[in-house]
Protein backbone atom coordinates (compact mmCIF):
# COMPACT_ATOMS: atom_id res chain seq x y z
CA UNK A 1 0.00 0.00 0.00
CA UNK A 2 1.25 3.44 -0.84
CA UNK A 3 1.16 6.20 1.74
CA UNK A 4 0.84 9.88 1.12
CA UNK A 5 1.83 12.37 3.79
CA UNK A 6 0.89 16.00 3.33
CA UNK A 7 2.63 18.56 5.49
CA UNK A 8 0.40 21.61 5.61
CA UNK A 9 2.21 24.77 6.58
CA UNK A 10 2.82 28.37 5.68
CA UNK A 11 5.07 29.47 2.88
CA UNK A 12 7.71 30.69 3.39
CA UNK A 13 7.87 28.07 6.14
CA UNK A 14 7.96 29.11 9.78
CA UNK A 15 10.38 27.25 12.08
CA UNK A 16 7.60 24.96 13.34
CA UNK A 17 6.43 24.02 9.86
CA UNK A 18 10.02 23.30 8.83
CA UNK A 19 10.52 21.06 11.84
CA UNK A 20 7.27 19.22 11.07
CA UNK A 21 8.39 18.64 7.51
CA UNK A 22 11.77 17.32 8.69
CA UNK A 23 10.09 14.95 11.11
CA UNK A 24 7.70 13.73 8.41
CA UNK A 25 10.66 13.09 6.08
CA UNK A 26 12.45 11.11 8.78
CA UNK A 27 9.37 9.05 9.56
CA UNK A 28 8.89 8.40 5.84
CA UNK A 29 12.51 7.31 5.53
CA UNK A 30 12.06 4.79 8.33
CA UNK A 31 9.13 3.17 6.54
CA UNK A 32 10.83 3.37 3.17
CA UNK A 33 13.70 1.39 4.65
CA UNK A 34 11.19 -1.42 5.16
CA UNK A 35 10.02 -1.20 1.59
CA UNK A 36 6.85 0.83 2.11
CA UNK A 37 6.43 3.59 -0.43
CA UNK A 38 5.79 6.93 1.29
CA UNK A 39 5.32 10.14 -0.60
CA UNK A 40 5.76 13.41 1.29
CA UNK A 41 4.17 16.55 -0.14
CA UNK A 42 3.95 20.11 1.06
CA UNK A 43 0.75 22.15 1.03
CA UNK A 44 0.24 25.83 1.70
CA UNK A 45 -2.27 26.33 4.51
CA UNK A 46 -3.57 29.57 2.95
CA UNK A 47 -3.93 28.23 -0.60
CA UNK A 48 -7.45 28.06 -1.94
CA UNK A 49 -6.98 24.42 -2.97
CA UNK A 50 -5.93 23.42 0.54
CA UNK A 51 -8.84 25.22 2.16
CA UNK A 52 -11.42 23.79 -0.23
CA UNK A 53 -10.02 20.35 0.48
CA UNK A 54 -9.53 20.43 4.24
CA UNK A 55 -11.23 23.61 5.46
CA UNK A 56 -9.50 26.15 7.69
CA UNK A 57 -6.57 24.59 9.49
CA UNK A 58 -3.98 25.71 11.96
CA UNK A 59 -0.45 25.31 10.78
CA UNK A 60 1.47 23.07 10.96
CA UNK A 61 -0.81 20.16 10.17
CA UNK A 62 -0.27 16.66 8.84
CA UNK A 63 -2.64 14.70 6.63
CA UNK A 64 -2.15 11.04 5.87
CA UNK A 65 -3.86 9.65 2.79
CA UNK A 66 -6.22 12.59 2.65
CA UNK A 67 -7.20 12.81 6.32
CA UNK A 68 -5.86 15.49 8.62
CA UNK A 69 -4.51 13.73 11.69
CA UNK A 70 -2.47 16.38 13.47
CA UNK A 71 -3.06 20.11 13.60
CA UNK A 72 -1.43 23.10 15.25
CA UNK A 73 1.54 21.29 16.69
CA UNK A 74 4.86 19.74 15.80
CA UNK A 75 4.64 15.96 16.10
CA UNK A 76 7.75 13.93 16.92
CA UNK A 77 9.17 11.52 14.35
CA UNK A 78 7.91 8.59 16.42
CA UNK A 79 4.36 9.94 16.47
CA UNK A 80 4.23 10.38 12.70
CA UNK A 81 5.74 6.95 12.22
CA UNK A 82 3.08 5.39 14.44
CA UNK A 83 0.27 7.17 12.60
CA UNK A 84 1.66 5.95 9.29
CA UNK A 85 1.81 2.37 10.55
CA UNK A 86 -1.78 2.62 11.77
CA UNK A 87 -2.92 3.45 8.25
CA UNK A 88 -0.92 0.61 6.72
Amino acid at each position, binding site marked *: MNLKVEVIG*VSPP*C*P*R*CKKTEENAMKAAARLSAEGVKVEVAKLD*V*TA*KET*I*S*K*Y*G*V*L*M*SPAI*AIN*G*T*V*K*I*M*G*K*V*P*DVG*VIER*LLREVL
Partner: protein
Amino acid sequence: MERKRALKTILMVAFVLFFIIMMARAIIGAYTLTPTSTAEDLKGLPLWQIPFVYIWDYVQHGWVCLGFAFTVSGLFAEFIPKSFMLKYMSSGKPIAYLIAMLIAPLFCVCSCTMVPLFSGLIIAGGGIGPALTFLLAAPANNLLADIVTIQVLGWQIALADIVAAGISAVVIGFLVSKTPWGRKFDQKSQKTPEQIASVELVKLPVDERLWSALKFGGYLAKRIIPAFVVGLVAVSYFQAFFPSELVKTYLTGAMGVVYAAILAGPLYTPTLIEVAMGKALVNLGMTPGATVAWLMGQPYDIPNALSTYRIVGWKIVIIYSLLAFTAAVFSGLIYSLLIGGI
Protein backbone atom coordinates in the same frame (compact mmCIF):
# COMPACT_ATOMS: atom_id res chain seq x y z
CA MET B 1 7.86 0.92 28.79
CA GLU B 2 4.60 1.58 30.63
CA ARG B 3 6.48 2.52 33.78
CA LYS B 4 8.71 4.89 31.86
CA ARG B 5 5.64 6.57 30.40
CA ALA B 6 4.03 6.93 33.82
CA LEU B 7 7.20 8.38 35.28
CA LYS B 8 7.49 10.86 32.44
CA THR B 9 3.87 11.93 32.94
CA ILE B 10 4.38 12.40 36.69
CA LEU B 11 7.50 14.50 36.12
CA MET B 12 5.70 16.72 33.63
CA VAL B 13 2.66 17.17 35.86
CA ALA B 14 5.01 18.06 38.72
CA PHE B 15 6.68 20.66 36.54
CA VAL B 16 3.34 22.26 35.69
CA LEU B 17 2.16 22.11 39.31
CA PHE B 18 5.39 23.70 40.48
CA PHE B 19 4.74 26.84 38.45
CA ILE B 20 1.06 26.94 39.37
CA ILE B 21 1.86 26.69 43.09
CA MET B 22 4.68 29.22 42.91
CA MET B 23 2.40 31.61 41.07
CA ALA B 24 -0.45 31.11 43.55
CA ARG B 25 1.97 31.65 46.41
CA ALA B 26 3.19 34.87 44.85
CA ILE B 27 -0.37 36.12 44.37
CA ILE B 28 -1.54 35.16 47.86
CA GLY B 29 1.58 36.56 49.48
CA ALA B 30 1.21 39.74 47.43
CA TYR B 31 4.83 39.25 46.50
CA THR B 32 5.61 41.48 43.59
CA LEU B 33 6.77 39.87 40.39
CA THR B 34 7.66 43.13 38.77
CA PRO B 35 10.97 44.97 38.77
CA THR B 36 11.31 47.49 41.54
CA SER B 37 14.14 49.67 40.26
CA THR B 38 13.28 53.30 39.62
CA ALA B 39 15.03 55.95 37.58
CA GLU B 40 16.90 57.08 40.70
CA ASP B 41 18.32 53.60 41.31
CA LEU B 42 19.54 53.34 37.75
CA LYS B 43 20.89 56.83 37.18
CA GLY B 44 23.82 56.57 39.59
CA LEU B 45 25.19 53.43 37.91
CA PRO B 46 27.93 53.22 35.27
CA LEU B 47 26.40 53.15 31.80
CA TRP B 48 27.22 49.52 31.04
CA GLN B 49 25.73 48.32 34.29
CA ILE B 50 22.26 49.76 33.76
CA PRO B 51 20.84 47.01 31.53
CA PHE B 52 22.34 44.27 33.70
CA VAL B 53 20.85 45.63 36.90
CA TYR B 54 17.49 46.17 35.22
CA ILE B 55 17.35 42.75 33.59
CA TRP B 56 18.52 41.08 36.80
CA ASP B 57 15.70 42.86 38.56
CA TYR B 58 13.26 41.36 36.04
CA VAL B 59 14.81 37.91 36.29
CA GLN B 60 14.74 37.90 40.07
CA HIS B 61 11.12 38.90 40.30
CA GLY B 62 9.78 37.68 37.01
CA TRP B 63 10.99 34.13 36.50
CA VAL B 64 7.97 32.61 38.23
CA CYS B 65 5.58 34.73 36.22
CA LEU B 66 7.33 34.06 32.90
CA GLY B 67 7.73 30.35 33.61
CA PHE B 68 4.06 30.15 34.52
CA ALA B 69 3.01 32.15 31.46
CA PHE B 70 4.97 30.02 29.00
CA THR B 71 3.84 26.75 30.60
CA VAL B 72 0.18 27.72 30.64
CA SER B 73 0.34 29.03 27.06
CA GLY B 74 1.75 25.71 25.94
CA LEU B 75 -0.98 23.80 27.77
CA PHE B 76 -3.76 25.92 26.28
CA ALA B 77 -2.36 25.60 22.78
CA GLU B 78 -2.33 21.84 23.18
CA PHE B 79 -5.59 21.14 24.96
CA ILE B 80 -8.05 23.59 23.41
CA PRO B 81 -10.28 21.69 20.97
CA LYS B 82 -9.06 23.29 17.78
CA SER B 83 -11.17 21.76 15.06
CA PHE B 84 -14.39 22.56 16.94
CA MET B 85 -13.26 26.13 17.29
CA LEU B 86 -12.14 26.56 13.70
CA LYS B 87 -15.42 25.14 12.46
CA TYR B 88 -17.43 27.79 14.30
CA MET B 89 -14.99 30.56 13.54
CA SER B 90 -15.24 29.99 9.79
CA SER B 91 -19.03 29.43 9.84
CA GLY B 92 -19.90 33.08 9.15
CA LYS B 93 -22.49 32.97 11.96
CA PRO B 94 -22.58 35.51 14.81
CA ILE B 95 -21.02 32.96 17.19
CA ALA B 96 -17.84 33.29 15.13
CA TYR B 97 -17.29 36.72 16.70
CA LEU B 98 -17.55 35.31 20.18
CA ILE B 99 -15.12 32.49 19.50
CA ALA B 100 -12.73 34.85 17.72
CA MET B 101 -12.76 37.15 20.73
CA LEU B 102 -12.76 34.70 23.64
CA ILE B 103 -11.08 31.47 22.68
CA ALA B 104 -8.82 32.19 19.75
CA PRO B 105 -6.51 34.56 21.64
CA LEU B 106 -5.79 31.87 24.19
CA PHE B 107 -3.77 29.73 21.84
CA CYS B 108 -2.51 32.13 19.22
CA VAL B 109 0.59 33.31 20.95
CA CYS B 110 2.75 33.05 17.91
CA SER B 111 2.37 35.37 14.95
CA CYS B 112 3.35 32.50 12.66
CA THR B 113 -0.06 30.93 13.24
CA MET B 114 -2.03 34.15 13.43
CA VAL B 115 -1.69 35.68 9.98
CA PRO B 116 -2.14 32.36 8.10
CA LEU B 117 -5.24 31.65 10.14
CA PHE B 118 -6.58 35.10 9.37
CA SER B 119 -6.16 34.63 5.64
CA GLY B 120 -7.50 31.08 5.94
CA LEU B 121 -10.71 32.37 7.52
CA ILE B 122 -11.12 34.91 4.75
CA ILE B 123 -10.47 32.48 1.92
CA ALA B 124 -12.85 29.97 3.46
CA GLY B 125 -15.56 32.64 3.33
CA GLY B 126 -15.89 33.07 7.08
CA GLY B 127 -16.34 36.78 6.43
CA ILE B 128 -14.13 39.77 7.04
CA GLY B 129 -15.90 40.56 10.34
CA PRO B 130 -14.96 37.57 12.51
CA ALA B 131 -11.57 37.33 10.81
CA LEU B 132 -10.78 40.92 11.78
CA THR B 133 -12.05 40.37 15.31
CA PHE B 134 -9.63 37.49 15.56
CA LEU B 135 -6.78 39.51 14.06
CA LEU B 136 -7.30 42.32 16.56
CA ALA B 137 -8.02 40.23 19.64
CA ALA B 138 -5.27 37.65 19.20
CA PRO B 139 -2.19 39.84 19.72
CA ALA B 140 -3.89 42.13 22.24
CA ASN B 141 -5.36 39.42 24.41
CA ASN B 142 -3.05 36.46 24.07
CA LEU B 143 -2.65 34.51 27.25
CA LEU B 144 1.06 35.17 27.60
CA ALA B 145 0.69 38.94 27.33
CA ASP B 146 -2.31 38.91 29.68
CA ILE B 147 -0.49 37.03 32.45
CA VAL B 148 2.52 39.31 32.22
CA THR B 149 0.39 42.44 32.06
CA ILE B 150 -1.50 41.43 35.20
CA GLN B 151 1.75 40.97 37.05
CA VAL B 152 3.65 43.96 35.74
CA LEU B 153 0.96 46.63 35.45
CA GLY B 154 -1.57 45.37 37.98
CA TRP B 155 -4.86 43.59 37.52
CA GLN B 156 -6.98 46.72 37.17
CA ILE B 157 -5.20 47.99 34.09
CA ALA B 158 -4.80 44.47 32.73
CA LEU B 159 -8.49 43.69 33.14
CA ALA B 160 -9.47 47.00 31.54
CA ASP B 161 -7.17 46.22 28.63
CA ILE B 162 -8.51 42.70 28.18
CA VAL B 163 -12.17 43.72 28.29
CA ALA B 164 -11.73 46.84 26.17
CA ALA B 165 -9.60 45.08 23.57
CA GLY B 166 -12.08 42.20 23.36
CA ILE B 167 -15.14 44.40 22.98
CA SER B 168 -13.53 46.74 20.50
CA ALA B 169 -12.28 43.80 18.41
CA VAL B 170 -15.86 42.59 18.02
CA VAL B 171 -17.25 46.06 17.35
CA ILE B 172 -14.55 46.89 14.82
CA GLY B 173 -14.91 43.56 13.02
CA PHE B 174 -18.67 44.03 12.82
CA LEU B 175 -18.47 47.66 11.69
CA VAL B 176 -15.89 46.96 8.99
CA SER B 177 -17.99 44.11 7.62
CA LYS B 178 -20.88 46.58 7.20
CA THR B 179 -18.90 49.22 5.31
CA PRO B 180 -19.20 49.24 1.49
CA TRP B 181 -15.59 48.05 1.23
CA GLY B 182 -16.17 45.25 3.69
CA ARG B 183 -19.30 44.13 1.86
CA LYS B 184 -17.52 44.21 -1.48
CA PHE B 185 -14.69 42.20 0.01
CA ASP B 186 -17.05 39.58 1.39
CA GLN B 187 -18.83 39.27 -1.95
CA LYS B 188 -15.53 38.70 -3.70
CA SER B 189 -14.49 35.93 -1.34
CA GLN B 190 -17.43 33.62 -1.92
CA LYS B 191 -17.95 30.82 0.49
CA THR B 192 -16.08 27.80 -0.74
CA PRO B 193 -18.07 24.55 -1.11
CA GLU B 194 -18.03 22.07 1.73
CA GLN B 195 -14.68 20.45 2.16
CA ILE B 196 -14.26 17.07 0.53
CA ALA B 197 -11.51 15.50 2.57
CA SER B 198 -11.87 14.78 6.22
CA VAL B 199 -10.26 16.00 9.40
CA GLU B 200 -10.04 13.33 12.06
CA LEU B 201 -7.53 14.53 14.57
CA VAL B 202 -5.82 11.69 16.33
CA LYS B 203 -6.09 11.62 20.09
CA LEU B 204 -2.57 11.12 21.35
CA PRO B 205 -1.85 9.65 24.78
CA VAL B 206 -1.73 12.14 27.66
CA ASP B 207 2.01 11.93 28.19
CA GLU B 208 2.65 12.78 24.55
CA ARG B 209 0.21 15.68 24.70
CA LEU B 210 1.82 17.05 27.85
CA TRP B 211 5.23 16.74 26.26
CA SER B 212 3.98 18.53 23.17
CA ALA B 213 2.51 21.29 25.36
CA LEU B 214 5.72 21.80 27.32
CA LYS B 215 7.76 21.72 24.13
CA PHE B 216 5.58 24.44 22.65
CA GLY B 217 5.97 26.51 25.83
CA GLY B 218 9.73 26.09 25.49
CA TYR B 219 9.57 27.05 21.84
CA LEU B 220 7.69 30.23 22.71
CA ALA B 221 10.22 31.05 25.41
CA LYS B 222 13.07 30.52 22.99
CA ARG B 223 11.47 32.80 20.44
CA ILE B 224 10.24 35.53 22.73
CA ILE B 225 12.83 35.80 25.50
CA PRO B 226 15.80 36.91 23.34
CA ALA B 227 13.76 39.75 21.85
CA PHE B 228 12.45 40.54 25.32
CA VAL B 229 15.98 40.83 26.72
CA VAL B 230 17.09 43.11 23.88
CA GLY B 231 13.96 45.18 24.46
CA LEU B 232 14.72 45.40 28.17
CA VAL B 233 18.19 46.82 27.46
CA ALA B 234 16.53 49.65 25.56
CA VAL B 235 13.84 50.07 28.21
CA SER B 236 16.45 50.22 30.99
CA TYR B 237 18.19 53.24 29.39
CA PHE B 238 14.85 54.79 28.67
CA GLN B 239 13.86 54.34 32.31
CA ALA B 240 17.14 55.82 33.49
CA PHE B 241 17.47 58.83 31.22
CA PHE B 242 14.19 59.80 29.63
CA PRO B 243 13.12 63.06 31.25
CA SER B 244 10.14 62.36 33.40
CA GLU B 245 8.92 65.96 32.89
CA LEU B 246 8.21 65.09 29.25
CA VAL B 247 6.14 62.06 30.24
CA LYS B 248 4.34 64.08 32.88
CA THR B 249 3.59 66.84 30.37
CA TYR B 250 2.44 64.73 27.44
CA LEU B 251 1.20 61.42 28.82
CA THR B 252 -1.21 62.76 31.40
CA GLY B 253 -4.67 64.23 31.13
CA ALA B 254 -7.14 63.68 28.31
CA MET B 255 -4.59 64.56 25.66
CA GLY B 256 -2.18 62.12 27.30
CA VAL B 257 -4.57 59.30 26.41
CA VAL B 258 -4.62 60.46 22.79
CA TYR B 259 -0.82 60.75 22.63
CA ALA B 260 -0.35 57.32 24.21
CA ALA B 261 -2.65 55.79 21.60
CA ILE B 262 -0.78 57.57 18.80
CA LEU B 263 2.62 56.48 20.15
CA ALA B 264 1.65 52.86 20.63
CA GLY B 265 0.79 52.28 16.99
CA PRO B 266 3.88 53.04 14.92
CA LEU B 267 6.25 52.20 17.75
CA TYR B 268 6.56 48.53 17.04
CA THR B 269 7.13 46.56 20.19
CA PRO B 270 7.18 42.76 20.05
CA THR B 271 5.10 40.82 22.56
CA LEU B 272 5.86 41.59 26.20
CA ILE B 273 8.20 44.51 25.49
CA GLU B 274 5.28 46.88 25.24
CA VAL B 275 4.32 45.77 28.73
CA ALA B 276 7.85 46.49 30.02
CA MET B 277 7.89 49.79 28.16
CA GLY B 278 4.49 50.61 29.62
CA LYS B 279 5.85 49.91 33.09
CA ALA B 280 8.80 52.23 32.48
CA LEU B 281 6.45 54.96 31.28
CA VAL B 282 4.22 54.45 34.32
CA ASN B 283 7.26 54.83 36.56
CA LEU B 284 8.06 58.05 34.76
CA GLY B 285 4.57 59.39 35.36
CA MET B 286 2.18 58.08 32.68
CA THR B 287 -1.40 57.98 33.99
CA PRO B 288 -3.43 54.72 34.19
CA GLY B 289 -5.86 55.92 31.51
CA ALA B 290 -3.00 56.61 29.10
CA THR B 291 -1.53 53.20 29.96
CA VAL B 292 -4.72 51.45 28.87
CA ALA B 293 -4.63 53.37 25.57
CA TRP B 294 -0.95 52.49 25.19
CA LEU B 295 -1.62 48.78 25.65
CA MET B 296 -4.45 48.82 23.15
CA GLY B 297 -2.26 50.27 20.44
CA GLN B 298 -0.69 47.02 19.36
CA PRO B 299 -3.20 45.83 16.74
CA TYR B 300 -2.51 48.78 14.48
CA ASP B 301 1.26 48.80 14.58
CA ILE B 302 3.00 49.01 11.24
CA PRO B 303 4.35 45.45 10.68
CA ASN B 304 0.94 44.07 11.57
CA ALA B 305 -0.76 46.40 9.12
CA LEU B 306 1.72 45.50 6.37
CA SER B 307 1.06 41.79 6.62
CA THR B 308 -2.70 42.22 6.59
CA TYR B 309 -2.56 44.76 3.76
CA ARG B 310 -1.48 41.97 1.42
CA ILE B 311 -4.58 39.99 2.28
CA VAL B 312 -7.33 42.57 2.55
CA GLY B 313 -6.00 45.66 0.78
CA TRP B 314 -5.13 49.07 2.18
CA LYS B 315 -8.68 50.47 2.41
CA ILE B 316 -9.72 47.94 5.02
CA VAL B 317 -6.42 48.31 6.87
CA ILE B 318 -6.94 52.06 7.15
CA ILE B 319 -10.53 51.71 8.32
CA TYR B 320 -9.76 49.20 11.03
CA SER B 321 -6.62 51.05 12.17
CA LEU B 322 -8.60 54.27 12.58
CA LEU B 323 -11.33 52.41 14.43
CA ALA B 324 -8.78 50.67 16.68
CA PHE B 325 -7.13 54.01 17.42
CA THR B 326 -10.50 55.52 18.33
CA ALA B 327 -11.26 52.51 20.52
CA ALA B 328 -7.91 52.89 22.32
CA VAL B 329 -8.60 56.57 23.03
CA PHE B 330 -12.15 55.90 24.21
CA SER B 331 -11.08 53.04 26.46
CA GLY B 332 -8.36 55.16 28.02
CA LEU B 333 -10.79 57.99 28.65
CA ILE B 334 -13.48 55.69 30.07
CA TYR B 335 -10.92 54.10 32.38
CA SER B 336 -9.87 57.55 33.56
CA LEU B 337 -13.46 58.54 34.23
CA LEU B 338 -14.46 55.33 36.00
CA ILE B 339 -11.36 54.41 37.95
CA GLY B 340 -9.72 57.81 38.06
CA GLY B 341 -6.20 58.96 37.49
CA ILE B 342 -6.33 61.17 34.43
